[in-house]
């Protein structure tokens, strides 16, 4: 495309400024976790590792981390099964209501989190009479994690086609053997990518979690929110936030490495 040099440089400047705006606040949090000043005045006058050492022994934060990991793993496991099943159904078959089903899968993340949150809260407490706990949070997380696995598996199935499976069947393998030896190995990296992203989504979630986790329990994001307005906890909150920023790059990096599909890494 031919445009004037001036326009091109203006656009480049906009891109660079945009990226600076995106990354600068995250960098500030990282730096602040080493800020020796407890009121976090800016710029930091001196740096310390003290907060990191204290955070590593903070029981509340560690318990919350463990709850987050449990919820994330369980929700991911459920989402992997349901998302893969839905992906096969929608990618391999044409049927009446197919579009509605795909809309249904997106719905839990398309609707505002607070709507999903109170709908499930109401369903658990008043309709089913279940006490809120870790289990209810897992169910809620799995609901909106399905779409991430679904997207990754659909993208892979679309690329894969059905020829190899048909060849396997022609050569005498039954359905299960074909799945075990042909389909699954080809899906494996897409499942890993989808699973990682589903875990990351669950790990970060706060609004739905607020309404579906039992009282007195905390996931890491809820722990941050509960401690955000307590000035004496600020240094620890800073460290936890910094850890989360660094940790969040891992799933994106791994998902990119695992699958070349464009779907991976997209939150939607």
């Amino acid at each position, binding site marked *: 495309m031919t445009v004037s040099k001036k326009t091109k440089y203006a656009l480049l400047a906009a891109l660079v400024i945009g990226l600076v705006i995106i990354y600068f606040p995250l960098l500030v949090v990282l730096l602040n976790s080493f800020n020796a000043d407890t009121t976090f005045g800016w710029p930091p006058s001196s740096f310390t590792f003290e907060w990191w050492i204290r955070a590593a022994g903070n029981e509340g934060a560690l318990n919350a981390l463990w709850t987050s990991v449990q919820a994330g793993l369980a929700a991911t496991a459920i989402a992997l099964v349901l998302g893969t099943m839905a992906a096969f159904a929608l990618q391999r078959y044409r049927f009446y209501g197919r579009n509605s089903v795909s809309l249904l899968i997106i719905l839990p993340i398309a609707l505002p989190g607070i709507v999903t949150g109170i709908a499930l809260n109401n369903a658990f407490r008043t309709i089913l009479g279940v006490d809120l706990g870790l289990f209810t949070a897992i169910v809620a997380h799995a609901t909106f994690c399905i779409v991430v696995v679904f997207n990754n598996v659909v993208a892979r199935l679309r690329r894969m086609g059905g020829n190899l499976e048909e060849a396997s069947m022609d050569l005498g393998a039954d359905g299960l053997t074909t799945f075990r030896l042909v389909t699954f190995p080809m899906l494996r990296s897409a499942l890993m990518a989808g699973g990682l992203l589903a875990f990351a989504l669950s790990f970060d979630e706060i609004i739905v979690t607020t309404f579906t986790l039992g009282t007195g329990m905390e996931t890491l994001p809820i722990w941050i*929110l509960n401690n955000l307005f307590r000035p004496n906890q600020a240094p620890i909150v800073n460290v936890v936030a910094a850890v989360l920023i660094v940790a969040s790059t891992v799933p994106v990096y791994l998902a990119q490495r695992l699958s070349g599909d464009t779907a991976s890494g997209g939150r939607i």
Partner: protein
Amino acid sequence: MDPRLDRDQGLRMTVSSPRYAVSSYLYRRPKLRLGMLLSAPFLWLGLAYLGALAALFVTAFWHTDSFTGQVVTEWSLDNFKTLFTDTVYRTITFRTVWIAALVTVIDAVIAFPMAFYMAKFASPRAQRILVIAVMTPLWASYLVKAYAWRTMLSGNGVLHWLLNPFGLDGPGYGLPATVITLSYLWLPYMILPIYAGLERLPNSLVDASGDLGAKAGRTFRSVILPLTFPAIVAGSIFTFSLSLGDYIAVKIVGGTSQMLGNVVYDNIGAANNLPFAATVATVPVVIMLVYLAAVRRTGALDNL
């Protein structure tokens, strides 16, 4: 023994095994297979999740007994009447929609030039890296990002430090801070669809417009913008919807200001009035449905 022979023998055995019979039975019945595949996801999402949403909507027509705090299953439109007639709720609804619209416009204005450079001038390798660079912060925790802006906007924070030499000061906590934070949070959701839309726009059309004598501004208005509009709308669906339902960012940086989400949250928690919370929660859903219906014709939904 030759392992190949062994495998052949295994194969011959499976042909007559019951497992093989089940497999071929299923193979001949695609509808049964489809039914089995769809059963679990449908039970989970179609029955449990949609059921929960429907139940919530029904609850919106009930009310809470003011003495016992129990939900009374009597049908009435009183909740909706309160919602529409009480000026507090009207103000909050308009404020929320206004914030969501403003966030959407700000994001579109920032995202478009970024996406334009990414799609049209960056080398393929740079493109890939830039997409990942834009996408990665999406996975950084929502709360951490809102918290980052609390740090940025605080009285002796970074914005104060940056603007002080110019005799200016940061906006502090309040509605402007909320708009800034929400725009920041949802910016990648706007960049990615616009980038995809611009990538599909053929360069030749832009060149042709120039060859026919249009200046840059005219080309932008008459060629680029109409063709990428569906992509912008696709991005706006996220920025708008996510802003409408938000209550945490406003709690963290908004000072005492309230949005619709806060009303829902307070009615669930402190006020223990689930029916009214459900009524308020229908507002963002209805606004989103109206918005989706309005933008359907632009083809934005195919850009998601």
